[in-house]
């Protein structure tokens, strides 16, 4: 009953509102231009700060009319300016407002308006454009279709502080890709914007600074240019350093630090430059402190992680600066138990940033511990660190999961941690779970971490094996992503190292020879190498060699032939010859080589190869062929050895061996020495 009563009421209220709004729109169509102007001005006053009114006017079709009036050459300049102001006000509303404005093609209309000479009108247009472009719903490429727009914007930079502020703000929001960077760079963005860093207006300074941060990001060309730019006789990097002074606003310090970080990562500034080591790094560490806002802490940590990612010295310095490692532990304390009770608003704020904070902290830990063992130790010793990583691996936010696994990966490079904390906290469990169903980027990191956990000395290896990881890794080798294929096969390789017969058989069975051979012809050299590595690990210890070769001998020999004949790097061929040497070490497997004259010829030719590594591997192979199956027993005492010896002599191996012992100067280098001694050992077999 109540509903029935209320419904008509609500409609009437709504219609009342739309009626007043309609009145504003109707006045835009008045034949008297003076009344139209007054109508627009009244509309301007009505919409300020009133989102509902804005939405109403948009629904009622005010935008196309305003745009028409704005573009109409017959409109007075005052009217056109007021139209731009109203449109700018409408854009300040909700995201839906922006969408509607963009759908009405407001951007080209306003860009066209910039060609006018009147500064007030230009500023109104720019202000509106700025508001539209900084919205996440506006596609940034809308700035670029007309090639005359960017140069014109550059030329407007000299008009006033307002044009400077709006244009640089538009640039910094619309520069999202390397192409955008290049376009802006080619139109002289650097020369035009650099002087604005010394503008008397803080807003202009800040927007110019932001522009440089987006321009320099991962862009060597821009960064290289930036280091040589002078602003009022001062190097740009020094201007940035000045902006990082501790009494400057935090926003300015942080953005200046970002600029220098990007310039450094793009190779324009050395990582040992004082402006990085003594200024940028400490500034970013400060941004991580508890005193900063949550957003600043996130940004600071991410930028710092990026800065020091490739440089162990920076990682070491950061790890002792201002208790950074301990400071980061605080990132996990949101929302705090206090905030929940204290006030709802703060709880909401904390919740919103909690994920961001955690992922930023994980990223920074990952970066800190990327190379230095001591730093890794320090990180794992931080309170509840491993527990935090473990729970991070199963968080709902993908960003957190990714960052957590990156952190884990970084720490997994430590033998000591693998043996201790990784095992104690059974990190393999959530890791395995993560691998079941995750996007590729997470999978890459997770599988890479798994590779380390499967190393022979890792106590986690056993439980992982028991959890049925082989199938999972085999499926990874079939992925479209080369990185995943590498990680999959790499993990299998590590797993096969000194493994039980049972595990090896299981790997071969699960992978299937077909897939194995497909991987041997993989376009990615890394995949090929790791597959050969896997083969080599599978073909170790005699019984294993004989068993695998008895079941898959033919295919393996085929694959080896193929690779030796194909165009491959020295490393690949060396690895392949090593596999042959392993085969030659088998009791029965030997025969697969001995009966293959073609293969013997190949081995012979590699013994005379110009590359010592290949010579060595080939000689190793021959030595194994000659060498007795029962290790210590001399060749002559064993059945079949005499035949092999004779055959090899017939094929001229003895001569080559003799030459190798003669020609190689033992003092030349280690591998040559090894080679000649290896040849000598082989020769001794004959002499015996």
């Amino acid at each position, binding site marked *: 009953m109540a509903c029935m009563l209320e419904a008509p009421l609500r409609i009437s209220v709504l219609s009342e509102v739309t009626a007043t709004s309609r009145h504003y729109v109707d006045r835009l169509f008045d034949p008297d231009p003076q009344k139209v102007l007054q109508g627009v001005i009244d509309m301007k006053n009505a919409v300020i700060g009133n989102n509902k009114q804005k939405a109403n006017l948009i629904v009622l079709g005010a935008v196309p009319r305003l745009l028409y009036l704005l573009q109409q050459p017959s409109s007075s300049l005052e009217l056109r300016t007021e139209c731009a102001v109203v449109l700018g006000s409408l854009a300040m509303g909700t995201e839906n407002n922006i969408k509607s404005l963009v759908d009405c093609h407001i951007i080209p209309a306003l860009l066209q308006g910039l060609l006018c000479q009147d500064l007030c009108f230009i500023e109104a247009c720019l202000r509106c454009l700025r508001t539209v472009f900084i919205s996440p719903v506006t596609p940034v490429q809308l700035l670029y279709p007309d090639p005359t727009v960017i140069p014109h914007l550059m030329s407007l930079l000299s008009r006033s502080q307002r044009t400077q502020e709006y244009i640089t703000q538009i640039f910094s929001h619309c520069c999202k890709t390397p192409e955008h960077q290049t376009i802006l760079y080619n139109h002289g963005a650097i020369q035009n914007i650099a002087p604005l860093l010394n503008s008397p207006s803080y807003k202009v300074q800040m927007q110019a600074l932001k522009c440089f941060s987006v321009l320099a990001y991962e862009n060597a060309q821009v960064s290289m240019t930036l280091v040589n730019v002078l602003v009022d006789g001062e190097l740009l990097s020094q201007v940035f350093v000045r902006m990082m002074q501790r009494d400057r606003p935090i926003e300015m310090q942080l953005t200046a630090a970002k600029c220098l970080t990007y310039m450094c990562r793009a190779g324009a500034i050395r990582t040992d430059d004082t402006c990085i080591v003594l200024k940028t790094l*400490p500034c970013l560490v400060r941004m991580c402190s508890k005193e900063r806002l949550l957003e600043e802490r996130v940004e600071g940590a991410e930028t710092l992680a990026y800065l020091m990612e490739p440089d162990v010295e920076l990682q070491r310095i950061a790890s002792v600066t201002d208790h950074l490692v301990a*400071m980061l532990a605080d990132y996990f304390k949101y929302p705090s138990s206090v905030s929940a009770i204290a006030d709802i608003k703060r709880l909401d704020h904390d919740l919103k940033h909690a994920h961001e904070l955690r992922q930023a902290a994980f990223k920074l830990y990952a970066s800190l511990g990327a190379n230095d063992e001591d730093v890794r130790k320090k990180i794992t010793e931080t309170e509840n660190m491993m527990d935090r990583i473990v729970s991070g691996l199963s968080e709902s936010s993908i960003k957190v999961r990714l960052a957590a696994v990156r952190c884990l990966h970084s720490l997994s490079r430590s033998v000591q941690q693998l043996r201790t904390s990784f095992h104690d906290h059974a990190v393999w469990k959530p890791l395995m779970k993560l691998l079941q169903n995750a996007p590729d980027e997470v999978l890459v990191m997770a599988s890479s971490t798994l590779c380390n956990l499967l190393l022979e000395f890792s106590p986690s290896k056993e439980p992982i094996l028991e959890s049925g990881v082989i199938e999972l890794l085999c499926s990874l080798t079939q992925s479209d992503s080369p990185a995943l294929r590498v990680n999959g096969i790499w993990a299998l390789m590590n797993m096969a190292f000194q493994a039980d017969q049972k595990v090896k058989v299981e790997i071969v069975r699960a992978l299937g020879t077909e897939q194995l051979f497909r991987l041997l012809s993989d376009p990615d050299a890394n995949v090929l190498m790791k597959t050969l590595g896997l083969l080599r690990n599978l073909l170790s210890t005699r019984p294993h060699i004989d068993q695998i070769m008895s079941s898959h001998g033919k295919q393996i020999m085929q694959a080896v032939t193929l690779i030796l004949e194909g165009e491959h790097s020295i490393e690949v061929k060396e690895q392949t010859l090593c596999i042959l040497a392993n085969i030659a070490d088998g009791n029965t497997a030997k025969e697969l080589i001995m009966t293959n004259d073609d293969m013997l010829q190949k081995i012979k030719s590699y013994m005379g190869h110009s590359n010592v590594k290949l010579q060595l591997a080939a000689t190793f192979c021959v030595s194994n062929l000659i060498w007795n199956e029962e290790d210590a027993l001399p060749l002559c005492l064993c059945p079949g050895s005499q035949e092999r010896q004779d055959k090899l002599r017939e094929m001229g191996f003895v001569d080559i061996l003799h030459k190798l012992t003669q020609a190689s100067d033992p003092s030349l280098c280690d591998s040559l020495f090894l080679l000649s001694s290896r040849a000598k050992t082989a020769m001794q077999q004959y002499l015996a």
Partner: protein
Amino acid sequence: MAELGAGSLQVGDPAFNYQEREFNERLKRLYPAVNEEETPLPRSWSPKDKYSYIGLSQNNLRVHYKGHGKNHKDAASVRAAHPIPAACGIYYFEVKIVSKGRDGYMGIGLSAQGVNMNRLPGWDKHSYGYHGDDGHSFCSSGTGQPYGPTFTTGDVIGCCVNLINNTCFYTKNGHSLGVAFTDLPPNLYPTVGLQTPGEIVDANFGQHPFVFDIEDYMSEWRAKIHSMIARFPVGERLGEWQAVLHNMVSSYLVHHGYCATAMAFARTTETIIQEEQSSIKNRQRIQKLVLAGRLGEAIDATQELYPGLLERNPNLLFMLKCRQFVEMVNGTDSEVRCFGTRSPKSQNSYPSSPSLSPRHGATNPHLHTTDSPTCSNGVTSKNKSNSKYPGVSSASSSSSSSPSSVNYSESNSTDSTKSQAHSGTSNQETSDSEMEIEAEHYTNGLADASSARIVNGTYKHEEILQTDGHGLGNGLAEDGSTSRQLCGGNLAATERMIQFGRELQALNEQLCRDYGKNPTHKKMLQDAFSLLAYADPWNCPVGQQLDPTQRESICSALNSAILESQNLPKQPPLMLALAQANECVQLMARVRAGSCSFARIDSFLH
């Protein structure tokens, strides 16, 4: 021997002098609030306050170990010669590890006076240290806490004491390692301790630039303190706050007799002026006479307008008379002027305006100690007084908004928190143009007369100040010029002066009889009479007295006396507030509130 080497650095050594000067300048820049007469800064290790196993060299900056170094019982420390003054706000020193010696058991830190020196810093109560061998921090305890990295030969370790929040952090090679200690007690000394043979460290108390950018850290705290002051709540009764500020400005203007400006200010801010306008003008007139050096007339006017005042203040009268004598020598006082050929009324070696804008800041650090504000109209060079011609100066004086003038009359400002504003904007038309006269357009008074822009017309009727437009007869202010002669060069005037001197002498004797001996008077009289002993009094050891700026103190003393007689405050509340703030900051230093270092009054006076 290193000690000898250090000792051989003569004062005359230019390199040494340069270093020393640089050192002093750096300390002054880092710790501007420290009064080294009260609380000297640490500049070296103390050769007295150390354990016997410590050797000092290189001006007591290098420390080396000379014990056996068998175990911790052989540890030895040395303290700096002085404790860290609280007024530093933030204090910093660095120690370079020249050699880690045998084991590198070195501790760098702080300790209080009297802590055992046979120990490394940090082991005992009121002792704090960061140790090189394990990187641990020791907070008054034998067991350390993991703190930072280890340090060894070649490293530079810094120690920063924050006296605002009583914490301490260390730096290694220019990188901050984070807070090591909190809740530090006051009066700590920089301290280092060594324990094994061969250990050598060098201290840098500011002798050289620091590796760590301590000034950047200080700037952050300065900004923090400043914003804390700026945001300090003034209570909810904002209206009253504003009224208080208005009254302060208004009373300041009234006090110094800036009549027209005061009236304009009162009109715009709708405040009430306690004193009657005529009374202000009277005071203004007397002040002008004093500042013009016409003491005789000033005394007469005072006696006429405020009968009994000088009789009740014989000391003041004596001071005035002494000054009158000086002005007679100067040839400015009307009693000698009248003997001159030129119109006595035209003589004015001083601007006709009581431009009493006091100077603030460093030049007057002890403002609060005198019972009246030290007034200076910004004229520092007497040479300037006549250097401008009427035409030029009239132009400048009529534009009342001199950029350099300090003017408390921005009446239309709504920002009531700004107690001092720059020279007014809207009220410049109504303000007394003469008030604004500053050094730049300092005239000899002729300009004002020839200018039609004496807007408030205060003196239009006062013929005594009317000058004949070309009466450049006052040669006195033309410093060093030959035209300057005793009493204007007139013999009769000189006789009158001598006569007056006798009267003065008699007055002094009279006062001595009535009130007992007064050494100040005696000195004053001696100084004044000494002028006659020189052929050229303007260029003699006591010639300073003849400087027109010397009239300012007597002028403000007289002004204060008049105000007091009218039951008005003898000092303007603004000056009281300023002096109080200054005193508070100094008091903060004495009670060890470190933030005083960053709450400098001068940084708020523009």
